[in-house]
């Protein structure tokens, strides 16, 4: 690639020229903004596929004796549903998608530290998705997204494909983690100290080491499972001297931090949306940043709370129980700080803000049931039931997915230069909120009264509750489709957004929408943190940024 400085348009810094061909510009791009959008679109496609599988599950559970699918097909459907949502939707959207697009702009960088590595990270992701869905052709994985052996050793050929696919996503995550960490350490604009970084950057800063460290444990576990399935080396098969619990330890050593990989970036999104629409500084900036760090560290020390009934020395349960409960403290600090941010504000209820407020309500419920489950005696009853299903969906749908929607409505104007329809957005929010709670609230009761998870048929006493859940799940699906329609419609028909439609104060809103290829003509200097609405903007060097704005997407 030609390494020529562009001097036209008063650009003094050393900048690579923008590639012109379609392939290098949009397909194999090394631009973090294009890669971010690629992640969001690809993960969006998988959201539709995973959502479709979820609806198949809910249709099957309309009747106590199932009957819509065979039990084997049902097992494949929910296993691929879970794997899709965790590895192909939530993690790629939050880190690869929003992380890539937003935080380099917020710290005043021209790109991430390793743009080529970034492109590789993205391009490991679609093949992994194709492999996971291709596994339906050879018998998809059927032992749930956790794939506990020895069950997964009995699984059909697609289970090996699942190992390979998730391994690829894992490599992609690890590379992204390294890339983001280096970028945030080394490429902040002058004056962008750690206490002046927007909180979304803090969220990514804390998530990056989790991606880097935890995912490697998953990679090792997946490799072992693959080798055992294909070549018969007994890691997990107890009849040959392996240990089924080894898998559970390695899997949860990754998958518990992964819960924070899936929620910390959302904390970041909410911490940007709240001050912007309440027109107030975020309450307790330092405590929010600090609590993210402590959540990440504690998150590595609690994995075995997923295994209280699996079989471990009783005394080992104590530290895992107490450490898990401790996580409630930093999480509580965050939630109280967000609620306090609303106090005394001038709250503007945009769709992004509605999703963020809805997030607080549902995530709080999911967090509280999480503390219940940390208590070993309660977990002895609730483990492996629909109570767990309810809890995890409150955290990952009511939490992560609502945060993602908030982020989409918030940053879409920056990505495309156009506003999404607020009217359609508000319909989408209310239908989603009602549909979500109607679907998952009854599952708490089902679980406590005796309905186990991962069953293709169930005791008839739960049929009414299940029909309520299934009916509301269709409402939720309509809500998600409305947002997708909104995204597609607004690319061409949305109102022009201008560079800063929300009057936000972080750096990405001070440059054109969509931003130039090189982000900033001059790297700005930063003088304070961005949340003081009564002060002038704390940046210098942005005077020329808005002199020639690119056309919004879909312009003729």
């Amino acid at each position, binding site marked *: 690639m030609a390494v020529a400085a562009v001097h036209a348009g008063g650009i003094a810094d050393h900048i690579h020229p923008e590639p012109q061909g379609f392939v290098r510009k949009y397909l194999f791009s090394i631009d973090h903004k294009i890669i971010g959008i690629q992640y969001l679109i690809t993960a969006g496609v998988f959201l539709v596929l995973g959502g479709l599988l979820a609806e198949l599950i809910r249709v099957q559970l309309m009747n106590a004796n*199932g009957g819509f699918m*065979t*039990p*084997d097909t049902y*097992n494949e459907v929910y296993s691929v549903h879970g794997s899709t949502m965790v590895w192909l939707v939530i993690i790629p959207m939050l880190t690869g998608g929003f992380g890539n697009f937003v935080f380099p702009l917020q710290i005043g960088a021209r790109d991430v530290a390793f743009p080529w590595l970034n492109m590789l990270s993205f391009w490991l992701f679609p093949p992994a998705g194709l492999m996971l869905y291709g596994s339906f052709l050879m018998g998809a994985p059927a032992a*749930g997204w956790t794939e506990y052996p*020895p*069950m997964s050793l*009995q699984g059909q050929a697609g289970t090996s494909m699942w190992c390979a696919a998730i391994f690829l996503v894992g490599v992609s995550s690890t590379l992204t983690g390294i890339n983001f960490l280096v970028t945030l350490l080394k490429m902040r604009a002058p004056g962008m100290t750690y206490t002046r970084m927007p909180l979304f950057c803090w969220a990514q800063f804390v998530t990056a080491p989790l991606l880097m460290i935890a995912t490697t444990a998953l990679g090792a576990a997946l490799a072992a499972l693959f080798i055992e399935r294909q070549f018969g080396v007994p890691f997990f098969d*107890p*009849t040959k001297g392996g240990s*089924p619990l080894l898998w559970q330890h390695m899997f949860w050593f990754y998958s518990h931090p992964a819960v924070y990989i899936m929620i910390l970036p959302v904390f970041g999104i909410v911490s940007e949306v709240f001050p912007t629409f309440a*027109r*107030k*500084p975020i*309450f*307790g900036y330092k405590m929010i940043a600090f609590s993210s760090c402590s959540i990440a560290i504690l998150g590595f020390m609690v994995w075995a709370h997923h295994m209280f009934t*699996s079989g471990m020395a*009783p005394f080992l*349960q104590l530290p895992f*129980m*107490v450490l898990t*409960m401790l996580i*409630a*403290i930093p999480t*509580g*600090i965050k939630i109280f700080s967000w*609620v*306090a941010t*609303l*106090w*005394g*504000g*001038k*709250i503007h*209820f945009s769709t992004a803000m509605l999703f963020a407020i809805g997030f*607080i*309500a549902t995530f*709080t*419920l999911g967090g*509280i*049931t999480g503390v*219940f489950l940390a*208590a*070993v*005696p*309660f977990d002895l*009853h609730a483990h*492996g039931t629909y109570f767990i299903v309810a809890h995890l969906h409150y955290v990952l749908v009511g939490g992560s997915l609502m945060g993602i929607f908030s982020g989409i409505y918030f940053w879409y104007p920056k990505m495309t230069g156009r506003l999404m329809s607020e009217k359609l957005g508000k319909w989408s929010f209310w239908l989603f909120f009602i549909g979500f709670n109607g679907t998952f609230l009854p599952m708490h009761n089902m679980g*406590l*009264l*005796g309905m*186990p*998870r*991962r*069953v293709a*048929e169930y*005791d008839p006493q739960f049929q009414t509750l299940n029909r309520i859940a299934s009916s509301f799940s269709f409402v939720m699906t309509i809500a998600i489709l409305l947002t997708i329609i909104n995204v597609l419609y607004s690319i061409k028909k949305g109102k022009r957004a201008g560079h800063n439609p929300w009057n936000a104060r972080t750096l990405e809103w001070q440059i054109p929408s969509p931003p130039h290829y090189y982000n900033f003509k001059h790297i700005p200097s930063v003088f304070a943190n961005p949340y003081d*609405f*009564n002060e002038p903007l704390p940046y210098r060097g942005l005077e020329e940024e808005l002199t020639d704005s690119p056309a919004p997407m879909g312009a003729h």
Partner: protein
Amino acid sequence: MIAVLSVLSILYWWLMAPITSWLPEAVDKAQQIDSLSRFLLASGTALFIIVVGYLLYFSFAFRRRKTDAPDAIGVQIHDNHKLELWWTLIPTIFVVIMAVFSIKIWAGIQLGDNNGMVVEALGHQWFYSFRYPDVHGEITNEMHLPLGVPVTLHVSSYDVIHSFWVPDMRLKADMVPGIINTLRFTPTRPGRYQIICTEFCGTLHGEMNKQYVVIDTPQAYKKWYQGWQQKNAHASDAIPTQSSGAISLAGGDVNAGKMLFTQKCSACHAIAPFAHKVVGPGLKGVLNDPAHPNLVDGAAATPANVAKILQQGYKGDMGQMPNQTANGLTDKDIANLVAFLKSTK
């Protein structure tokens, strides 16, 4: 008002919630666990009301009004150390209380001595079997326990990971092959309580909820126990998989077989042409189908061979079918089923 609501919720959940009318407490440990659950539900509900109450109240009270200037801003405060100290300290104290309470209950459940009456429960795909001291072999229909006698229950598995959960006991232990997990409890309430598998264990995981723990009075238990002892007196210690020898098919009842089919077979087989696969193939006319003259094990489709598969089960490339024991079929049941299958054309 938010405070009043949260106090009311505490009072309701802690003191008045009718948990036992939803789900009886069958053993002593269930009462201990419920006391913790009440505390958790009470404090969790109160916390939820406080957070969401203030969230809604602030959202309403500090909304942007039409009279506000478009660029109006809120009160510019960054933090309040006193407030932050309080909302760090109070949850910390609360977590400590919760941890202490949980550890106290935990110790009562997990740290008992091991001198109860020992019973073993073993998981199979897809049923449970039980072993008792001084009874040969394994029992596969129900598990009986005497009222008021401490029990040490060891659980493990023959194949994949299962779980032993009795909701009315509030206790659960995974059945992991190669590992023995232990539950200790004393039955306190006579009755018949469902055992449910909560760890995914294959195709018919959802069907693994058809066996029961029966808590008897000591007299009834003794009678049941001696009955088993005598019945199994000559059995070997091997798992009793099926009756031995060929099954007499004379006098099979078509209607009884039809009813059995809907109860025991229809989860996997439809009365429909061969190609209508549910888990296994459709079985309509299985004994009269010239296109498929052989059964899954390669033997000719005759009544005796069908009875053999029902008796011994099948495991091979084409999948697997539970045997007579797992399906809970008597020899007479098999004769009825074969008669019914013969009648479908």
